[in-house]
């Protein structure tokens, strides 16, 4: 079955090259259909790989260069269920986005299709590979396709700013990763993840390993939009076309989180042990990210920028899941990635449809205009509720598992903070939905930052493909919490993910894994505690939305006092998001210096 492994990468890439070659020969619809077929094929193959990987990691050595004497000479793809599942998610979102853009994209569609397919192949390769430098190559390919797609609408100035900020910060992060890879190679003479883990095992973490850890993690955390490296995400999302935003929020950011998990467990888990210092720093950063994202989400009126900050919130929660260094929490993060990817993708599709039908993406400008398009309002509301953590809906399963892991590690204090973050960002989405689709709330609000408008597409687009794609995305995302057997399967997969010795034995010495019994098809029952958290989150979200809508009806005294207390920090936070790339690079420097300094002192 190892012949399946190159296919999710080779098919999209080959099709992209073919599309560019035949650009002027074939009509647009034929090429659109070919692109859609290629993405669907990649999704199908990734799902097959995931199912096979549950029995044991699937391994493929490129060029036939198998390891000799326990030393890896070639590059391998080592698919485990979580990695293959992530590849399937990425390819699936690309398929939905291409279906959506069948009618949404109106110009330069062929180049768009080609770049989307390249993006698809790169993400699949990134999730499946077992070689650190190969990871870097797919990371850069993802980046290049993404920068071009972000700047797609060249007629406006906003996309240029978004694409420039995106390209420069992520490239700087990539160079940091490369320096880290160089350091690791110098120490171990290896680039294969399993072999790096084997060579570093047994030796304590010295200065080189600690700095390599810092640099590699920071580079991937830039991609994962974690504070203080998150500034580029909102700029890029506000201006990229909606189907592209689906991929950015749904899969690309999650790739950074996956890389942190994969590299930690295969390479660094032995020299660092289960270092509490790594755990506490990652958890702290995750919590801060979630809270900052939630606050900024509330302050937005540009719908896509609001969704971007909501992604940052959830990326923070995912980082907490990974950073707890616990298999249960890791399974929770994996489930979060799945449900968040589909729901957020669906929400972005709703945004794009709103732009086409109602000609704006500004919440205040659209006040009440959404009453004309009720189906999109239903989808938006369903998606917003799905992101809050209500039991049995959307991100509930992931959140519950992360909470379990936090309690197991004695860090239960993160649970209320994460609940607040998800509730506030969900509340912001509910507020926007109520204002746009129901016409509730004030027509003006000085608290929200005005942004430049987005040019709607010139011609009216057919709504059917957009509606189908968006509905599928949101329904899948919401239903994931009640998929039978998903929880147990992800937990088993996570336990295999964190087992470094088994991974090394399988990759380098071809050891056969033990056969596991078929996991039961159960659905996680919500405990009283999770009901409490879920309903509290829903209540808080509703409260936040109500506050946003009817703030002006509160007594004057209360508002003045609250304004005096809260305005300075809010203004500081808002001005920090300056849109200037020099500021972002400065934060990258400060963040790396602080993380490196903290770990230099605590991990020695």
């Amino acid at each position: 079955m190892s012949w399946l492994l190159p296919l999710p990468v080779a098919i999209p890439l080959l099709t992209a090259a073919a599309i560019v070659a035949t650009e002027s020969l074939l009509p647009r619809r034929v090429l659109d259909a070919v692109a859609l077929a290629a993405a669907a094929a990649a999704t199908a193959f990734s799902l097959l790989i995931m199912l096979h990987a549950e029995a044991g990691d699937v391994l493929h050595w490129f060029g036939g260069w198998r390891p000799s004497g326990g030393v890896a000479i070639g590059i391998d793809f080592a698919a485990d269920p979580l990695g293959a599942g992530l590849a399937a998610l990425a390819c699936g979102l690309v398929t939905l986005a291409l279906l959506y853009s069948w009618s949404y994209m109106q110009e330069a569609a062929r180049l768009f299709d080609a770049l989307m397919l390249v993006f698809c192949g790169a993400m699949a390769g990134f999730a499946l590979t077992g070689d650190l430098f190969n990871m870097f190559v797919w990371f850069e390919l993802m980046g290049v396709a993404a920068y071009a797609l972000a700047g797609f609408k060249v007629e406006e100035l906003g996309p240029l700013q978004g694409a420039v900020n995106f390209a420069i910060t992520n490239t700087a992060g990539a160079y940091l990763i490369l320096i880290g890879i160089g350091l690791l190679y110098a120490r171990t003479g290896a680039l294969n993840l399993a072999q790096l883990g084997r060579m570093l095992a047994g030796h304590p973490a010295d200065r080189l390993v600690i700095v390599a850890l810092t640099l590699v993690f920071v580079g991937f955390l830039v991609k994962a939009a974690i504070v203080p490296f998150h500034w580029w995400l909102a700029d890029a999302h506000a201006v990229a076309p909606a189907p592209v935003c689906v991929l950015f929020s749904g899969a690309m950011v999650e790739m950074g989180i996956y890389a942190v998990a994969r590299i930690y467990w295969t390479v660094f888990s032995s020299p660092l042990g289960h270092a509490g210092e790594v755990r506490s720093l990652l958890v702290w950063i995750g919590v801060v990210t979630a809270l900052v994202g939630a606050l900024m989400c509330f302050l937005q009126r540009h719908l896509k920028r609001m969704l971007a900050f909501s992604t940052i919130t959830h990326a923070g929660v995912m980082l907490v899941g990974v950073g707890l260094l616990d298999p249960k929490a890791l399974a929770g993060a994996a489930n979060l990635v799945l449900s968040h990817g589909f729901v957020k993708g669906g929400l972005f599709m709703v945004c794009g449809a709103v732009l086409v039908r109602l000609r704006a993406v500004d919440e205040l400008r659209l006040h009440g205009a959404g009453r004309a398009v009720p189906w999109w309002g239903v989808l938006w509301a369903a998606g917003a509720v799905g992101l809050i953590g209500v039991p049995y809906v959307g991100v509930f399963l992931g959140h519950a598992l992360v909470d379990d892991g936090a309690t197991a590690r004695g860090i239960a204090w993160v649970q209320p903070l994460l609940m607040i973050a998800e509730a506030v960002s969900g509340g912001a989405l509910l507020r926007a939905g109520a204002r746009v689709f129901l016409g509730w709330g004030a027509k003006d609000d000085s608290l929200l930052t005005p942004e430049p408008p987005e040019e709607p597409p010139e011609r009216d687009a057919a709504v059917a493909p957009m509606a189908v794609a968006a509905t599928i995305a949101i329904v899948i995302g919401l239903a994931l919490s009640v998929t039978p057997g998903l929880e147990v399967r992800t937990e088993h997969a996570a336990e295999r993910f964190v087992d470094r010795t088994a991974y090394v034995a399988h990759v380098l010495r071809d050891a056969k894994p033990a056969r596991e019994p078929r996991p039961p098809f159960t659905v996680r029952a919500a405990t009283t505690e999770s009901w409490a958290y879920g309903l509290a989150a829903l209540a808080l979200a509703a409260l936040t939305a109500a506050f946003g809508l009817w703030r002006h009806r509160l007594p004057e005294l209360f508002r003045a006092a609250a304004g005096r207390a809260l305005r300075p920090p809010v203004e500081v936070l808002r001005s920090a998001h300056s849109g200037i790339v020099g500021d972002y690079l400065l934060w990258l420097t400060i963040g790396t210096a602080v993380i490196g300094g903290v770990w230099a002192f605590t991990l020695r």
Partner: protein
Amino acid sequence: MNFLAYGVAGWICLVGFYGAIVSKNLIHLALCLTVIQSSTYILLLSIGYEKHGGAPIFKGVKLGTTAVDPVVQSLTLTDIVISVTVIALILALALDAHKKAGTIDPDQLADFHG
């Protein structure tokens, strides 16, 4: 002397970052990124150097003679191609910015903020 090459690489990286942070001009920014790239090349190639090692080319050279590490050279080659392409993309964005906004000062291009 033992660590001079690595020190040079580190220094160039810091200089590149400083230039990028205070840059007034997108093209200058792209070139500062090029400087940071160069530091990674120097680091990679110095890592692979072996004393008294020749080039890893074995035409007319007996197999088994000490040669420097070919893997870092292939990594550097890949790195060069990647970096060149990304810089080309950033320069294209700079061109577009000049056409649309009349300026290539990154501080002036901050349409979306807050």
